[in-house]
């Protein structure tokens, strides 16, 4: 491993799961984990098992729903999809992250005189 992987900030995994489901539609747990790894070019430090805690949390909040189904290769698996409340939450959280990362970008690029470049 050349570069150390990114540790996930609290709450970011939930947001990633929501975004993944929003973009890809219905997915099973492995699918979600795989997808997040692919998108992040394997830069995220994710034990795939931890995804299940996130999934149950999101389910309790009513942001995703789950149902047993059959995968492409004929396996029984639990499929998750985003709910309307989940989409709303995603929009809100995404906007928040956007603002935060903009802000952090500005703060971290501040030059020594203190004026923003």
């Amino acid at each position: 491993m050349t570069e150390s992987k990114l540790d996930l900030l609290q709450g970011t995994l939930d947001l990633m799961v929501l975004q993944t489901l929003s973009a890809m539609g219905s997915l099973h747990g492995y699918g979600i984990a795989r997808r997040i790894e692919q998108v992040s070019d394997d830069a995220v430090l994710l034990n795939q098992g931890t995804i299940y805690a996130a999934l149950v949390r999101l389910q309790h909040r009513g942001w995703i729903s789950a149902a047993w189904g059959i995968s492409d290769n004929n396996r029984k698996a639990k499929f998750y999809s985003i709910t309307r409340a989940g989409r709303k939450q995603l929009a809100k959280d995404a906007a928040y992250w956007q603002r935060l990362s903009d802000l952090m970008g500005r703060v971290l690029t501040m030059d020594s005189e203190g004026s923003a470049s």
Partner: protein
Amino acid sequence: MSDRQLNSIAGSIRRGFVRLFSFFRKKPLDDDLNEEMAAHIDLAIEEKMRYGLSYQEARRQVMIRFGGVMQAREQQRESRGLPGLDILMQDLTYTLRTLRRDGSFTVIAVLILALGIGANIAVFSVVNAILVRPLPFRDPQQLVWVAPEATKCGFSCETYSADAYEEFRAQNHTFQDVAGYFAFSSSDNVKLTGHGQPTPATSILVTGNFFQTLGVEPALGRLFLPEEANKGARPVTLLSNAFWHTHFAADPAIVGKPIDLDGAPVTVVGVLPERFDFGSVFAPGSKIDLFTPAVLDDMRQWGNILALVGRTKPGITIEQAQADSNVVNPQLYFNIKYPQSLGNYKDQPIHLVGLKEYVSGKLRRSLIVLWCAVGTILLIVCVNLANLMLARSATRTKEFALRSALGAGRMRLIRQLLTESMALSCTGAVLGLAFAYAVTFFLAHQGSIALPMLSSVRVDGATLAWTVAIAIFAAVLFGIAPGLKASSKNVQEALKDSGQGLSHGRKHELTRALLVISEVALACVLLVGAGLLLRSFLHVLDVDLGFEPSHAAAISVDYDDGGKDEKRAAILREMLNQVNAIPGIESSGVVDYLPLERNRSWGSPEIKGKHYQPGELPGAYVYVVSPGYMKTMGMRLRGRDFTWDDGPKSESVIILNETSAKYLFSGGDAVGRMVVMNGQDWRVIGVIQDVHEANVEGKPGWQAYFSIAQAGPAGAELVVRTKLPPEVLASSVMSKLRGLNPNQPAAEFRTIQQIVDHAVSPRRFFVLLVVSFAAFGVILAALGIYGVISYSVTQRTQEIGIRMALGATISRVQLGVIGQTFRLALIGIAAGTIASVIVAKAIAALLFGTTPTDPTTFAGMVLLLGIVALVAGYLPARRASRIDPMTALRNN
């Protein structure tokens, strides 16, 4: 904004439910998760294999990516359910198992806790009912007791005339309304006829607006109408709920119907609600059955008769009402017909107090003392249990060491011990609640204890909250010390099978010794407090009341004299003659007001021509008595008693008490001298020793006795002196009375002792409770001492064995153990004595005839605790001396 908050609250409640739900569906949810994870791993392996990896290699890589399956599962469980509850359930199951294994410990611990917590709950219910809970009226904070500050002439100085009442009601600006009741009703003052034998009942006159002012709504029917308090109005009455139940079988049809009271029809207009208990608020220890409107026009000549309750206007403070009353008071007429009676109340400024304060203020100090005593009991219980738990945890050292070696954190061990103490204390609390429920039920049905609001003592919501609070408090208190101790042990030390390491044993014993010392000290404080109160109570019982309560009994009698003095004298003379003829009756007499019950005054006797400062002479308590009454009561008389010759046509005679005679005649003999009272001349024919007329503990005031043939009595009580139990005489006396007056109601004898007991019942009540707490405290302290000494003997079996093998005698071993006990006890007693002195000073106001540093009490306490320590130490000492050196050395 608030909408969002609401949403988020609703959301978290929903999530809470989902989590709770998950908690109870552990198995299916776990199965579901396992299946899901298995699918995940299979899918991943399949994908890897598609890239040409072998199954083993694919599986290896997949498992690495997945991370720990167990951790993932735990994580998922934690976010889905209630991890705290999971641990609690584990701890509880474990606790129940260990407690069941340790049956005798559990039973003792739970019983001690049940008694301690139960006593606390019971006392709290009493405190809550008497001090905390508002009076059961509408807006009770607006109600005030309108009366001058209590003085030396009893009820007559706390009441107002009908005219003064009306003037006050009309002239004030700060009261919504002012109501009153006739303060001189005696019990069983009316008879209910028309249902076979006449039955006695207690009726009280109240102003027409009385219930409206208090804010009491009738349970049935209606309250009085204003015109029903007018002269000549149709007589009406309201029934108390209890009377309605006992005498009218709770028949709703009674409303609107007439009942026969004293032979005249009176219409029942309504029934009062169950929660309205006049007696418990205004006259503790008595019950009122019927309420009738006071017709003020009939009462204008009766003097000061109305006790007043006002309801202030909203927003008016008691100070504002007081200022207003100060203005109104000098403008009151005693009787409006006599202009010179304007300003009669000037010298008795009104002193307003909240009704709640009037009803229960006097008891605050006693109740707080009681509360502290019972709190001390709880402390002792906790100390005792901490001790028991420590002893137990000492034997469980290895168990805890093993658990912490297996990875249990310190918090986890403390948590386990707290769960145990919580389980014990909750079980104790449940039992205690049952115990308290029985006690409060008993107290609420004790009509004879003269404490206000006692009938409303019950286990209610506040009590339950209090129970939970003290159960948790107790559990933390006695669970935390052993918890900290057990968890701080060195694992290695404990796991080594090293028997009793001396150093650790010492430290352990020090903690336990400190606990026992504090227990003894607390018991000491309780004992001294209880001892002082008990001695005060004995002094109260020893007070020379001025009469002999034993072997005397009273019964209310009814007669019809048509208001004529001669006729009354003849009737009563005949009645007493007949009663005296009954075998077993030594003497008898008639009085209108018995001592320690009701009282009244009619102004004061004066020496003719002598000028007195206004307010200089206290009003004299007035009694109208028949010849023979004083002898029957056992009053001590100098001079002569009334005779039947002291009739309406002969000279007016009076008997005074010592206090008044001494003041009036400044030490000279009063017998044979003349006094003026109510504008009339009276010859003093005798002086009696002071009688405690209003209370046992106070100083007697002025008393004046009149002949029943010369002054009109208010009711009549027949008093008899007999060695026989009064029940035996009841039927023969009653048949004589019925023979004279067929309308005599079926009254019952009350012994004079009962009346005295009633008067001292609040003190008896407190003393009984405090003494039983102290007894409980001493037993617990004894248990504590015994536990510690016995434990240390067990721990030192080997040592004692060696000593005995080396030639120590039995008595030497015994002395050693007893000496150890005494050291503990003495330190505890010394500390307790210091604390006791402070506490005793604090309760000095509650003592009677006893100084706070009463040497007898303190000596008694030291002696008692010494004996207790001796006994508690002797049992283990005996065991120690019976140790067989051979066995002791062979063991271990």
